[in-house]
């Protein structure tokens, strides 16, 4: 311990200054600096302003990408979406639970923001629709069925939609099992063995286009609402946010968070954090986020502890940058 203590508290020949002093007005300097920085900020504001792209809504998503909306809703219903399989803090699944060795910090505080994608994203919004006996019968049939049957219905409905989406991404001919009415935006899916799900999804799409799903998800817990977790995760499961982000150069393989919409500088100070995501083993690791955060935590600790790190703390004495900084002092001496 004494050796460690000696290493951390190495000898230091820095003596209190006994030389001459010159007049210096700290308060005046600060006031001038505030004025200069404020002026610089105003000049940058006048020249460049700041970005403010309108947020996406579920209504916009369902109108612009109706097939993607219905396909995502089907995944929420059968429990195969990213959110449905995520794990803590949203549910008890495990698909997105990351770990380092035997540590699973994601599980430590449990499910703090519970989301049941089947109920929250499909059943509850549909139950807000009044005076629709066909939908009411479909919902009753769905809810009365055993879980296994419900899942089979959902998967039967989702399969042709997934094939349609995959064909679109790969620029292949689109299967005829899914059709979109270009004038109304209605989606018809030829799915055998889907039970009441097609009826439910058609109603959900109509509700979403009218803005009803946005409202339903935001007012599900109380009137005054500031928590957008449910609608944001629903939209993140779909394709609209990613499509817009790609157009704005915000994807991880583009500029990521270092950029803002409209090519504005974003959080450029996160360059080192985002750098790790571009290289292996972090890039392909299923626990990449946790790995990167641990690396950054270790580097941050080293950064804070530089005065105690032999070698790193000695480098400034060996690299004569200090001679440039105190050039006048050394010349006078």
């Amino acid at each position: 311990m004494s050796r460690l203590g000696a290493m951390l508290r190495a000898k230091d020949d820095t003596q209190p200054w006994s030389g001459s002093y010159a007049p210096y007005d700290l308060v005046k300097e600060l006031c001038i600096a505030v004025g200069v920085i404020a002026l610089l900020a105003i000049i940058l504001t006048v020249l460049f302003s700041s970005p403010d792209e309108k947020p996406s809504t579920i209504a916009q998503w369902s109108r612009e990408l109706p097939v993607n909306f219905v396909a995502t809703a089907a995944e929420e219903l059968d429990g195969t979406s990213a959110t449905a399989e995520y794990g803590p803090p949203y549910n008890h699944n495990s698909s997105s639970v990351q770990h380092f060795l035997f540590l699973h910090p994601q599980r430590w505080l449990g499910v703090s923001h519970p989301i049941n994608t089947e109920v929250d994203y499909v059943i509850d919004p549909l139950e807000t629709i009044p005076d629709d006996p066909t939908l009411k019968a479909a919902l009753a049939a769905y809810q009365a069925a055993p879980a296994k049957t419900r899942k089979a219905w959902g998967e039967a409905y989702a399969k042709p939609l997934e094939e349609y989406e995959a064909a679109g991404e790969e620029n292949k001919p689109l299967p005829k099992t899914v059709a979109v009415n270009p004038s109304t935006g209605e989606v018809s899916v030829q799915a055998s063995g889907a039970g009441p799900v097609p009826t439910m999804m058609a109603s959900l799409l109509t509700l979403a286009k009218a803005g009803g799903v946005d409202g339903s998800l935001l007012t599900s817990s109380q009137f005054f609402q500031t928590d957008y977790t449910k609608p944001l995760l629903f939209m993140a499961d779909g394709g609209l946010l990613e499509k817009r982000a790609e157009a704005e150069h915000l994807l991880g393989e583009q500029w990521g968070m270092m950029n803002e919409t409209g090519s504005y500088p974003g959080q450029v100070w996160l360059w080192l954090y985002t750098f790790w995501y571009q290289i292996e083993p972090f890039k392909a690791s299923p626990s990449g986020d946790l790995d990167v955060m641990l690396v950054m935590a270790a580097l941050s600790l080293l950064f804070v502890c530089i005065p105690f790190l032999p070698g790193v703390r000695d480098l400034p004495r060996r690299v004569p940058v200090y001679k440039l900084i105190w050039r006048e002092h050394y010349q006078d001496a």
Partner: protein
Amino acid sequence: MSAPPTQPELPAQPEPPAASALPARPATWTGRVREAAVAALPPEKLLPESQPTYVASWIYVFGVASLASLVVIVASGSILALKGPAWWHYTGVGHFFNSIHLWSVELFFFVMVVHLWGKYWMAAWRGGRARVWVTGAVTFLVAVPCALTGYVSQQNFDAQWISTQAKDAMNAVGVGAFFNLTNFGQMYSYHVLLLPVAVVGLVVAHVLLVRRHGVVPPIPLASSSSGPSDGPRGASS
């Protein structure tokens, strides 16, 4: 011949206590805090009117520029907070102040990084100044989530994208339960109160430590190649 005027008789004054009778330490907590504060930072040390002659380099500008940027950030952010989080989306004046807030943050990080690099090459932790470095470095680290919470509180597409992308890292390290990037209300609280208080508190501590220890003297030329290591010293300068 009349008698000369005499001074009216004054009431008897109590004798001042003898020096030896004064208590060694103030009896109250308040007095003790005052004495400790004045002993650590007497007024002439807190706000001196002169500096050592070596304090003459452009690098010193970036320290005060960091403070100045923080002042502009807090001022512009306070105006935005007074009018509410949606104001800047639908008024030109609001958008103007939001832009000032954005650019002052960009300036803050830029000048702070230059300031940190400058202090590194000056080995500014020498002479018992390790705590000065530590408070500065921690300020930078706390400023990062302070800015992140601002980006996710914008209520626009940027906020949607950043919050849904960054949530996985927060969830992975287990803080998602109380640091939920998709919860606007929570992020706004972090951004306008909790994290700014932490940043300003750290900056105040940093500046007071600089005033207590003084600006680090130049590295002695004679010891630059084979001199002792630049480790922190226990005693303050």
